[in-house]
């Protein structure tokens, strides 16, 4: 079946920021194999339009849709919010769009894997050599100059199309910004190569030499399209994507979260240090004072270090906000980013060892504890992991604000007092009577299950509603 018509269409798109309308009734269709440049003064709405095509902005009016092989329209974004990630789209934001702890080769491989494209080492090295980044292949982006970072960012958007047999759309925001003349020439030749291969490209630029490459120039002023100049164009016959499978992208996102934490374990350390500090402070109170109290107080002291660790701000939030890395992921994976990030960015490692460490430090000479309790302390540790995942979801919700540091996230965390209190009561019962195999609101198992269900409810509330 031959599908005709545009690859991607924005119809009547209006984007508002507060009381200011940034884009007004924009109609723009990106044809297959077409290169479109968006031009205009600063603040005219070029970047907002590009990012709206990528599904990053909520719409006041209109919709953005894409086309598959079978001719069906896929809504990327409409008034109801974010729907499906744009199929076959690769994006290079104006900023790097990556966490700076990533290495150059890792960034390029990640971008290709998210697009579902596998590139062999030799081919990748050839392209890196061409773009003069091979000598920095294993260096972190953090130590590169801005010009080199830009090269990596643009190359990561171009790579999937270079090795794809299907139609792709490449969105580039000021790709030549910060590049020297030689790099700009490489960029232009790559764009021409993409054009010859039949891929579509949308470029936001002030650079007239870049405008000359395009098939169509769309000028914007005050959020409206003022002129659209069309040149002659060779139609593309590259086939469209048969379907879009975002599983590979999600797997890549999960791998990315773990890999970055392994390379620079900020999350683990910033959770561990206050927890150990709390444990040392509790220990310094004097063991006799603690162990002579009832099991409820003992359980409280036992759980506090782990609680401190799960409530800490996850490092993933900063990683996703660095250089708009989170927006890059959202553009490619859509609304799946938030739920996966809140689960994988949660405190998986520490609660279990911390609960047992606290038990060893605080309770070793307590006489009122049931002997079998120590075999079941993993249960409250699991409940604390659930509380930590719910806390991560709340932190992620607040991090969606532009100035997230200017609001008190703790106000939203108050709800977590209940799952903690239930975990606390379950731990006290474990210490006093040991584990019981029956279920009920006054048994450790029942309380732990309820605590986890409440945490899951909080997680759902924080994750499901906000991602429009």
């Amino acid at each position, binding site marked *: 079946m031959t599908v005709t018509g545009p690859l991607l269409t924005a119809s009547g798109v209006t984007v508002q920021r507060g009381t200011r309308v940034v884009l007004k009734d924009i109609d723009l269709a990106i044809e297959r194999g077409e290169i479109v440049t968006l031009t205009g003064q600063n603040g005219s709405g070029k970047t907002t339009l590009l990012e709206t095509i990528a599904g990053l902005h909520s719409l006041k009016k209109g919709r953005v849709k894409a086309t598959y092989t079978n001719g069906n329209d896929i809504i990327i974004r409409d008034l109801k919010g974010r729907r499906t990630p744009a199929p076959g789209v690769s994006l290079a934001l104006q900023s790097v769009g990556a966490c700076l702890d990533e290495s150059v080769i890792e960034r390029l491989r990640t971008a290709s894997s998210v697009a579902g494209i596998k590139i062999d080492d030799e081919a990748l090295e050839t392209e890196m050599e061409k773009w003069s980044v091979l000598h920095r292949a294993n260096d972190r982006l953090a130590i590169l100059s801005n010009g080199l970072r830009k090269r990596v960012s643009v190359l990561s958007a171009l790579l999937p199309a270079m090795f794809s047999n299907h139609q792709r759309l490449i969105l580039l925001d000021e790709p030549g910004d910060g590049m020297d003349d030689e790099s700009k020439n490489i960029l232009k030749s790559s764009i021409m190569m993409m054009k010859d291969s039949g891929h579509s490209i949308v470029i936001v630029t002030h650079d007239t030499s870049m405008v000359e490459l395009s098939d169509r120039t769309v000028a914007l002023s005050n959020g409206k399209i003022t002129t659209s100049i069309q040149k002659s164009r060779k139609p593309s016959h590259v086939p469209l994507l048969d379907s879009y499978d975002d599983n590979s992208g999600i797997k890549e996102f999960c791998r990315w979260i773990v890999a970055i934490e392994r390379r620079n374990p900020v999350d683990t350390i910033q959770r561990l240090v206050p927890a150990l500090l709390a444990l040392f402070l509790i220990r310094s109170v004097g063991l006799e004072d603690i162990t002579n109290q009832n099991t409820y107080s003992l359980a409280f002291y036992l759980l506090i270090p782990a609680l401190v660790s799960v409530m800490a701000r996850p490092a993933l939030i900063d990683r996703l906000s660095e250089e708009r890395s989170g927006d890059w992921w959202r553009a490619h994976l859509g609304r799946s980013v938030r739920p996966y990030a809140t689960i994988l960015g949660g405190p998986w490692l520490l609660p279990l060892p911390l609960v047992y460490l606290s038990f060893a430090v605080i309770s070793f000479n307590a006489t009122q504890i049931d002997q079998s309790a120590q075999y079941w302390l993993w249960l409250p540790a699991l409940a604390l992991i659930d509380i930590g995942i719910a806390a991560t979801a709340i932190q992620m*919700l607040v991090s969606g604000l532009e*100035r997230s540091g200017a609001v008190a996230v703790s106000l939203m965390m108050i709800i977590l007092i209940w799952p903690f209190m239930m975990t606390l009561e379950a731990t006290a019962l474990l210490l006093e009577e040991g584990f019981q195999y029956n279920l009920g609101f006054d048994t450790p198992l029942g309380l732990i299950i309820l605590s986890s269900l409440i945490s899951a409810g909080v997680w759902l509330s924080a994750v499901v509603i906000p991602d429009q």
Partner: protein
Amino acid sequence: MGRSAGLGENRYPNLANYLVLVGGIGVAITVFLGTFWAPDVNPSQWRAPEAYRIIFLHVPFAWTSFLAFTVLFIGSLGWYITHSDKSWRLVQTGSDLGLLFGIGVITSGPIWGMAEWGVPWDWADLRLNTFGLLTAIALFIVMARRSQPDHDSSRDTIASAGLFGFMLVPITIIATTIYQKRHPGIVVLETEDTGLDPQIRAVMLLGFASLTLLFIGFSIISNHLYSLEASAEDILKDMDERPGGE
């Protein structure tokens, strides 16, 4: 944009001024009657019988916070669905008044709780905890509104916080119901088998009516102010786009 008020109009509608005046006088009379006219309760049933008088403000505060939180919820849902300025003004008004009246509830409650129960906060008390939670969310929303650039995306997240607060209410109900076994046992409205004393009921109804009038008056004023603020912002944006400015 359909703004409802221009900058040259009166500061507040007259009706709102009257409502606030009458409501304010009513609250003052409620406090006076509650302190000096309402009868004492049976000391054998109460640990701190004099402290009960705080209910003349506490319960009407709870009622008006409930109204404010409902406005916040409707506004948040409305913004989430329609993205209309009208819905956003409900979020603004609901969060401001929810914070104001919510603070009334969660400060007067613990004062009475400390005197009567011996503890300032009871994790088993559904009303106290629900209002505590929603007041915290209202404070978060007020802080977020004041600190964030006014973009649609900021409004989305803030309205989500409003909805988040309401989705937590069932969780609060479940949690507090399970903790009900730890409740101190004395509930203020169930002290008499035959119901409330007529004088107590009269003062309380006066408190309800007065605070409701205050709530309506404040809502009109708040809505009017936020309309004016939006109009002023439009004018400022137009001025920003004039050439030659710095």
